[in-house]
């Protein structure tokens, strides 16, 4: 198995599986602690609300397991937000693997919330996950909350203010956008992830 997608109870795991399939890779979905611990790489997806998702991770025991993982882990969208200390969405404590608090995007004229659409990545640092990604490539975002730009930010996106689009701390990466729905650029990010050891 090339990657295991952690079943955090949210919907829409199929689109991630299909994205790996298009890359000729195999990914299966699991919430079994042993499968997760022994996986070569893990994806933490997430669609839904932070407080709900954290409750499900606590109930399944995964909230305690995830911070101890040592293999590459990629959190996507809400899955990335769950890696942080805290989220304003439902005022919930998250996994605490990454510092900072995930905050609500502020709607403004021309900047509706949720933010849904294609935005450019602005790379701050090089990283194996970003190999082959051009400086201003577009990726697809769907979110109402975002992590602030900090020392762990690899790339930002502008939505009124710059927010973290890709973060990394050690073996934990996070992507606020959906690589599985970001055409060729997203496919490259996932292909890069499959090469991480």
């Amino acid at each position: 198995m090339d990657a295991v997608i952690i079943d955090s109870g949210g919907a829409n795991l199929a689109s991630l599986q299909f994205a790996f399939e298009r890359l000729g890779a195999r990914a299966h979905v699991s919430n079994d602690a042993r499968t997760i611990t022994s996986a070569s790489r893990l994806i933490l997806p997430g669609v839904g609300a932070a407080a709900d998702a954290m409750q499900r991770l606590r109930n399944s025991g995964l909230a305690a397991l995830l911070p101890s993982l040592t293999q590459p882990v990629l959190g996507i969208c809400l899955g990335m937000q769950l890696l942080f200390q805290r989220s304003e969405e439902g005022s919930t404590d998250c996994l605490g693997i990454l510092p900072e608090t995930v905050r609500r995007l502020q709607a403004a004229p021309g900047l509706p919330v949720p933010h849904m659409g294609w935005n450019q990545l602005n790379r701050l640092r090089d990283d194996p996950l970003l190999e082959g990604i051009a400086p201003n490539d577009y990726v697809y975002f769907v979110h109402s909350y975002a992590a602030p730009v900090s020392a762990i930010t690899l790339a930002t996106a502008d939505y009124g203010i710059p927010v973290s689009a890709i973060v990394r701390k050690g073996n934990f990466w996070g992507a606020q956008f959906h690589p599985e729905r970001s055409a060729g650029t997203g496919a490259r990010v996932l292909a890069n992830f499959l090469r991480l050891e």
Partner: protein
Amino acid sequence: MELAARYRDEGADELVFYDITASPEGRSVDREWVRRVARVLDIPFCVAGGIRSVADAEEILNAGAEKVSINSPALANPDLIDALSARFGAQCVVIGIDSQLTEQGYRAYQFTGDPERTQESGRDVLSWVREVQDRGGGEIVLNCMGSDGVRRGYDVEQLRSVREICHVPLVASGGAGAVEHFTAVFTEAGVDAALAASVFHSGAIAIRDLKRDLRTAGVEVRP
């Protein structure tokens, strides 16, 4: 399916699949078909057609769609919007509104997929736009029936009035016939996206050319 792959390759930013006869016929869109689309598409897509419950929506999202769009079922049961938004998040919940001018002003219509069953819902469009946002709708597709199908341009005036009260993404629908119509709806109505079908299906407008012209006109679009 061939169209889906063609639009993906031509640079469409998002696809919307409407099974417009599902609601009037009392059925909902085929899940297996959604899975087949999800396998080939690497861009977001939204599915509409007779989604009447949280369970319907869950099956469609699990099959690989990003978003579900509801129209007639939301008018019949507005609480469905709250339930979908609470379960999947506002970003998954698109509200389609078929708007037509009547003597009472713009009204939302139901079952527009079947001319014989099409009926006025009794709801004023602007108040419905406010209500669906309050209930947790995350995006609004406003289909202006008066301009739909005639390719004379989007209803910029109506879209602008909806834009003023719409704080979630607003998608223009109905009336696209030429590149200038897209430019106008982005620059004059301030919509977040423009939806079109027939001009793309027929090949009258190529997506790549459209995007190039929009960029020239100063509208930011993905290349």
